[in-house]
């Protein structure tokens, strides 16, 4: 019981530490390169297996190799939406600035992965189904998800005041995530009316390990890529939002001076502007 409570205490302390922008910046100094390295390693291994080692499919030939970028993109698009909505909810409940930062920085990445899933899906469907678009349940749900992402981003950038913007965006993200299962269910029902005889299986529900392994590698690699880009963007946003605070000033102050302490070109340029005014 004591071990559990001490673990819980450590987790909640870490959670609240991450909530402070300054702490997040310090922690992400170490975490960001780790995520980037993990992404590179996992994706390179996964790509090698996907392109060179995995055998060609019996029915679809080599075109099925698109699966190894399509499926991870689709998984990520859903995963990122859930992360975004969770971060939004945490921000609203605990009033954490960092949670809102995570939410708004995730939105463009999620939209990118959703577009990627749609595009690679189209490219896969063109030779296999014979058409670039199909009103399949998953494709339609992905398209609606893309609009949900756009809505969240559009709402955030419509407001002038940042605090209002992030809280409004958070409300929309939470409302969206409640409706996403309903959307998915309704679209599946609707497309089952239209589908008829053709059933599209992505490599079949029982995948041989030679196909499953690279898929898992690519999926994990993409997830770490999401973490990497999220942290990069979150660091940018933290710097931008906290630019008036002391720790940001202290961080960037040394870059305004040259080693000998003489005023750098920046100072000269700025003082030149001052002189002409």
């Amino acid at each position, binding site marked *: 019981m004591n071990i559990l409570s001490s673990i819980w205490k450590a987790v909640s302390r870490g959670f609240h530490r991450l909530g402070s922008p300054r702490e997040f910046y310090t922690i992400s100094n170490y975490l960001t390169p780790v995520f980037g390295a993990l992404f590179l390693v996992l994706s390179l291994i996964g790509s090698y297996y996907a*392109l*060179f080692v995995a055998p*060609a499919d019996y029915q679809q*030939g*080599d*075109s099925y*190799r*698109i699966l190894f*970028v*399509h499926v991870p*993109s689709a998984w990520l698009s859903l995963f990122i939406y859930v992360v975004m909505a969770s971060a939004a909810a945490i921000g609203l409940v605990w009033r954490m600035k960092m949670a809102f930062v995570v939410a708004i920085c995730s939105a463009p*990445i999620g939209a*990118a992965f959703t*577009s*990627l899933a749609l*595009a*690679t899906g189209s*490219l*896969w469907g*063109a*030779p296999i189904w014979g058409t670039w678009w199909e009103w399949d349940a998953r494709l339609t749900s992905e398209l609606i998800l893309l609009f949900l992402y756009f809505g969240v981003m559009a709402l955030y950038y419509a407001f002038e005041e940042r605090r209002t913007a992030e809280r409004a965006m958070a409300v929309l993200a939470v409302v969206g995530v409640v409706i996403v299962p309903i959307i998915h269910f309704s679209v599946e029902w609707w497309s089952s009316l239209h589908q008829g005889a053709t059933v599209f299986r992505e490599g079949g529900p029982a995948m041989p390990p030679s196909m499953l392994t690279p898929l898992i590698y690519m999926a994990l690699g993409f997830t770490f*890529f999401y973490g990497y*880009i999220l942290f*990069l*963007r979150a*660091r*940018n946003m933290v*710097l*931008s939002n906290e*630019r008036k605070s002391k720790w*940001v*000033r202290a961080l*960037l*102050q040394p*870059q*305004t001076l040259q080693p000998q302490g003489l005023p*750098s070109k*920046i*100072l000269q340029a*700025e*003082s030149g502007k*001052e002189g002409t005014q």
Partner: protein
Amino acid sequence: MNWSEFFYMGGYAFYVWTAWGITAFALCWLFLQAKLSNAKIKSEIIRQIAREAILSENNADSN
């Protein structure tokens, strides 16, 4: 390893390589956009610090 066969991808070369290509492009674009934005924000803040340093110097001089 038969490279020409590999690139041919059993006739699906266009589709497979376009799909993998736009994926790589999208990932690179996300990365570059984050880096460019970083440089832009840092230069903005540095210029702001420099401006304030000059303003405080001028105030100190006039005082």
